[in-house]
């Protein structure tokens, strides 16, 4: 797997915004509307996805919406991911995935239990294999990338 030449690593997801921030926010937001408003806003922080990367290689299959995924491997060994989707909720959930997985070395990334994080946010059903919205395939694709880079 090749890393994208386009630099999208200067973004808050997984750098200035951490999972702790997401957990704190969720604690304060007690109804679903506020939580989803937060998820939608987080999705707006995704850096723009380069049009040139919207190709078959980067397409994530198995989604109701169209989903693309690229990654960039930094010189310091940190992996950055970028996801795009035409569904707004999927973008928001993807942004949470990036908060959790961005800015780690591949080996560290592979050790992160994303299911547990989503469980804590009470969002697990969105990434469960039964939902069929492709977030599961997105996560496997990320893990494949990390495994390849770690090897």
């Amino acid at each position, binding site marked *: 797997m090749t890393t994208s030449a386009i630099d999208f690593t200067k973004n808050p997801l997984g750098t200035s915004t951490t999972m702790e921030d997401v957990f704190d926010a969720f604690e304060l937001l007690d109804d*679903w*509307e506020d939580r*989803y*408003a937060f998820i*939608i806003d987080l999705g707006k922080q995704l850096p723009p996805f380069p049009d040139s990367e919207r190709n078959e290689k980067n397409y994530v299959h198995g989604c*109701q*919406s*169209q989903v693309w995924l690229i990654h960039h491997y930094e010189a310091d060994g940190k992996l950055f991911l970028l996801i795009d*989707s*035409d*569904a*707004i*909720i*999927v973008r928001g959930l993807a942004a949470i995935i990036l908060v959790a997985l961005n800015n780690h070395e591949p080996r560290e990334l592979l050790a992160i239990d994303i299911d547990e994080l989503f469980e804590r946010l009470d969002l697990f059903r*969105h990434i469960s294999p039964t939902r069929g*919205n492709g977030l599961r395939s997105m996560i496997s694709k990320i893990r494949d990338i990390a495994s390849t880079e770690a090897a």
Partner: protein
Amino acid sequence: MSTLSVAKITQPLFDVHAVRRDFPILSQQVNGKPLVYLDNGASSQRPEAVLQAMDSYYREMHSNVHRGAHTLADRATSAFEGARKKVQQFLNAPSAREIIWTRGATEAINLVANGLAPLLKPGDEILLSQMEHHANIVPWQMLAERTGARVLPIDVTPEGELDMDSFHSLLSERTRILAITHVSNALGTVNPVADMVAKAKAQGVITLVDGAQAVPHFQPDVQALGCDFYVFSAHKLFGPTGIGVLYGKAELLEAMPPWQGGGEMIERVSFAGTTYNTLPYKFEAGTPAIAEAVGLGAAIDYLATLDRDAMEAAENALLQRANELVTSVPGMTVIGTARHKVPLISFKIDGLHPSDIGTLLDQQGIAIRAGHHCAMPLMEYYGLPGTARASFAFYNTLEEVEQLFAALQKIQRLFT
């Protein structure tokens, strides 16, 4: 409309709240909200009567059918064949021999497509429509591949009706098969199948009607329709999964070769040669879905206890209310505005993906379907990745329609 008897006038014709009590699954909470189930087009729910029929079948009479020399086998066989009789009456088919059990509408269409293979030659044409479910497209494409025949789709109008000019221009002396849906699962359109079948029959064309989305809303009469084949799945008709029906005219079924081989479908097996059983068993290899057949019979009995006209009027009222409320959601457009529709609305909302709508309705306890509805050619025609679809059943209430629209307004506020 039936004439109202005096007794009926004194009580509500169709008491939806009483009917709902017959469906145990409906009285639950989902995501902390009362469930509003509007995904009936994908699969409807079962009344207590169906659950009990299947339960008591297993508790009291289960055995294999047609074979045993004992009392339970007799009971199971008579329950199983009794269910076939109920389906025959439900469809007004001339004979129970013409009712073949299948796994569902999909398998029924595959069975017919296989059986008709010997009749086709290169250059023959199979007419479908652009609004078919994949189940009524792919088996014909596979048949075309095998035989050299061609599959041609009848156009759809922007309103979501079948384009009759397109139908007439495609119907020709090369046409051998017409396979069309009675009701569109993605749009709710009720197609003029009786007319189309009559025109096709006049040219000697074999006709199949996909009734999967029709039977939950009205009772088809296969003799009045005049079609050669009619198919449906029990799970959309308030019955079990895993069973469906193929009605076929006896003379065609007789002419068709068996599809699967095995037990039940034979008269005599020998290595010198095997002879096949008579209809309907010729097409029912192996142990069938007995409890499911019994469950389907119970669903048909249950429906017979309801006043059909009143039920259809209640369903119409649901559709009408939904149509009235569309303007209360800015940016909402209904896809499919045919004159004659079952209570189903497929829609899009500007700026939202269907999956966003589905996810956020689910948060509010409302179940709909988001996606291409296994009708990709139709979605392509409309240039949409998919739609959100609310499909109603007779047990849905006007309040639920209103809840759907209130929930859509809420979603929209979230995005603006």
